[in-house]
C-alpha cells in the first residue's frame, strides 16, 4: 500500500493503547494496524495478545479468520474484482480470469514488480453496474477489459 509505515514495536504499542478504551477493541485495532503498516505484522499480533490478555494462539485465530487482514506486505496498489453472482451475470468471471492470465497471476497474487495485488471480493453493492471493482478503495462500475488494463498500467507508474 502507498505510504505504509515501516513496522515499529513502539508505534504498534501506541495504536493498541489508543483503542483499549473500547468495548471489544480487537477489530478496530487490527484495522488501525493494517492502515498504518499495510498489513498486520506478527510482532504486532504478539503485542495485541498481551494487551488483550489472551493467548497468542487465540489472537492468531482472530487475525486469520478475516479475509481482509493480511499477514505480509502486499503490492503498492490493490485491485479487488467482484466475482459474486450479479457481476457473473455480466461476464465478470471470464473477464477477470482473462485479466489475471494477461498479468500471469492467480487470485491474490502480486505482480513481480510489487506494483499491484489482485484479489477477489464478494459483492461491493454496485450490482446495477456489474461488473464492479475497487481500486485502492475507489469504486468502479461497469468495468471492462480495457479499464482493467489501464489500472494495471497506472499501478506500474
Amino acid at each position, binding site marked *: 500500500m502507498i505510504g505504509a509505515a515501516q513496522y515499529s514495536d513502539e508505534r504498534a504499542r501506541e495504536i493498541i493503547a489508543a483503542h483499549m478504551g*473500547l*468495548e*471489544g*477493541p*480487537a*477489530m*478496530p485495532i*487490527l*484495522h488501525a494496524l493494517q492502515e498504518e503498516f499495510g498489513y498486520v505484522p506478527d510482532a504486532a499480533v504478539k503485542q495485541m495478545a498481551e494487551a*488483550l490478555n489472551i493467548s497468542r494462539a487465540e489472537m492468531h*485465530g*482472530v487475525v486469520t*479468520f*478475516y*479475509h*481482509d*487482514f493480511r499477514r505480509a506486505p502486499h503490492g503498492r496498489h490493490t485491485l479487488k474484482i467482484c466475482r*459474486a*453472482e*450479479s*457481476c*457473473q*451475470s*455480466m461476464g465478470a468471471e471470464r473477464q477477470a480470469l482473462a485479466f489475471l492470465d494477461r498479468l500471469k497471476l492467480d487470485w491474490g497474487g502480486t505482480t513481480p514488480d510489487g506494483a499491484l495485488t489482485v484479489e477477489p*471480493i*464478494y*459483492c*461491493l*453493492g*454496485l*450490482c*446495477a*453496474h*456489474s461488473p*464492479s471493482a*475497487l481500486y485502492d*478503495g*475507489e*469504486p*468502479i*462500475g*461497469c468495468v471492462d477489459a480495457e479499464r482493467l488494463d489501464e489500472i494495471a498500467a497506472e499501478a506500474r507508474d
Partner: protein
Amino acid sequence: MVKLYIPLDMAAVAMGANKLAAAVAQEAAARGETIEIVRNGSRGMLWLEPLIEVETPAGRIGYGPAKVKDVASLFDAGFLSGGAHRLNIGIVDDHPWMKRQNRVTFVRCGVIDPLSVAEYEAHDGFKGLKRAFEVGPAAVVEEVTKSGLRGRGGAGFPTGIKWKTVADCPPGKKYVVVNADEGDSGTFADRMIMEGDPLSLIEGMLICGYAVGASKGYVYLRSEYPVVAKVFQAAIEKALEAGWLGANIKGSGFDFDVELRIGAGAYVCGEETSLLESLEGKRGIVRAKPPLPAHVGLFGKPTVINNVLSMATIPMIMEKGAKHYADLGVGRSRGTMPLQIAGNVKYGGLFETDFGIPLGVVVNEIAGGTRSGRPVRAVQVGGPLGAYVPVSLFDLPIDYEAFAAKDSLIGHGGLVVFDDTVDMSWMARFGMEFCAIESCGKCTPCRLGSTRGVETIDKIRSGQNVDANIDLLKDLCHTMRFGSLCALGGFAPYPVESALRHFPEDFRKSALEAAE
C-alpha cells in the same frame, strides 16, 4: 443561486460522480455562475447515475447519466434553469420509475442532504422519536408489534417480538445492534439508506434503545462499503452536535450513543450471532441458539439485533402509527419491500413497493429485461443463498410465504437477472464454492459439505456417473439444509437444488456432448 444535487452514493461515485461534481463546480466558476452543489443519496434509478438534479420552480429536473465530457454542453443548454438536453429526463418525481413506487423507508433517500439534521427534521425526521417519548417504552414495543414489521435482513422474523423479549429482560446493560453486513450479491438497499438517509437509521436505533432500555448502539458495517463508513460516521457526529445523541437527549432523560464498527470481509458475519462474536473481537464463529441474542447477546447482555432497513423503517411506523404501515402489503407480508434490481438488467436500481407485485412484472416491465438484450433465463432472488427462479414461475408474487411455498426465499430483496448464456451447473458450483470460502467452520455439514458439493458438481460437469452423482448431490443438499447450524450452510443448497430442479439440462451437457 441555483441548487444542484449530485449523489455521494457509492454507485454514483463508481460511475464518476465525484469527478463530475468537481467539473461542474469548475465550469460554473469559469462562467461566473453561482451554484450550490448538494451531495445527496441516490434516487435509486441507478442506470441514470451520475444523475444531476437542478432545483427549478417547477420541481427538480434530472440530467443523467452525466459524464465530465457532458458538463460544457449542459451549461450551454441552460441546464441551470432546466434547459433541454439529450440527458434531460424531466422532473425526477414524475419519472415513471418513481411514480410506480410506494416509498416508505426510502422516502427521503436522494431527496435531502443526508448530512443535514435541519433538512431531516424538515422532512418529518425525529417525529417518530418525539412520539415515542410521549407514549413511553411499552407503547412503542406494542406499536412496532402491531405494525407487522418483519426483519428485512432475510429471515423475516417479527421485529416487535424481538424487542419485547429484550424489553422484558430485567433492567441493566442492554445493547442495540444494527446488522449492516449486507453481503448478498444483488443487494444494496442498506448501503443506499445509510448513504442517502443515515439519520433515519440513527433515529430507529434511538427509538429501539428507548423502548428496550438500552443506552448503547453498535452498527456493524461491512468493509466493502468505504463510502458508507465515511457518510455514516459524519452523520453520527452531526446528530451528536444537534443533541440527538449523547446524554439526556432533548431533555427526555434518555441517554444513547451510537458507534460504528467495521467488519473485515467475512460474509458469515452477516449471521447475527457470528456478528456479535466479531463485535466482541473474536473469530466470527456462529453461536448455537438458544440462548437467543435477545437474552444473551453482545458481551452476554440482552441485545436487539436488527437489519438496517428494519431499523430505518421504525421512525415512520412511530410517526404515522402501526395501522398505516400494516395496511400496506398482503397476507403476513405487511408494509413495503425495497427491491434491489441487479445483474443483467436494462434498468437496475432500488424499487420500493408494497408486497404482492409479481416477479415477472418487476423483471420484464420495471427492469426492462436484460442489458445484453438476450432473453431472461433465471433470476436469483435473495442473494447467494437464494433460489434460481425460472421464467415459468414469473407470476409468483413478492411475498415471504408465496416464495417459501416454491422452495425459494425473498431474503433481503435482491434480484439478480441472468440471460440465456448462463450455465446453471456453473452457478450451482459457485454457490457451493462460495459457501466453502465463507463457512465459519463450526458445523460439519457446512464446512465439509460445501467442499464435497464443489467436488461432486465438478464430477457431474465432467460427465462422471452423472445420475449417481446428482442423487448424491441432492442427498448432500438435504444434509446441509437440515444439519447446518445457521443459514449459510442451511440455505446454500437453495441455489443448487433450484438449479437442479429448474435447469436439469445444464447438468447433463457433458453427458450429451459425449453421446453425440
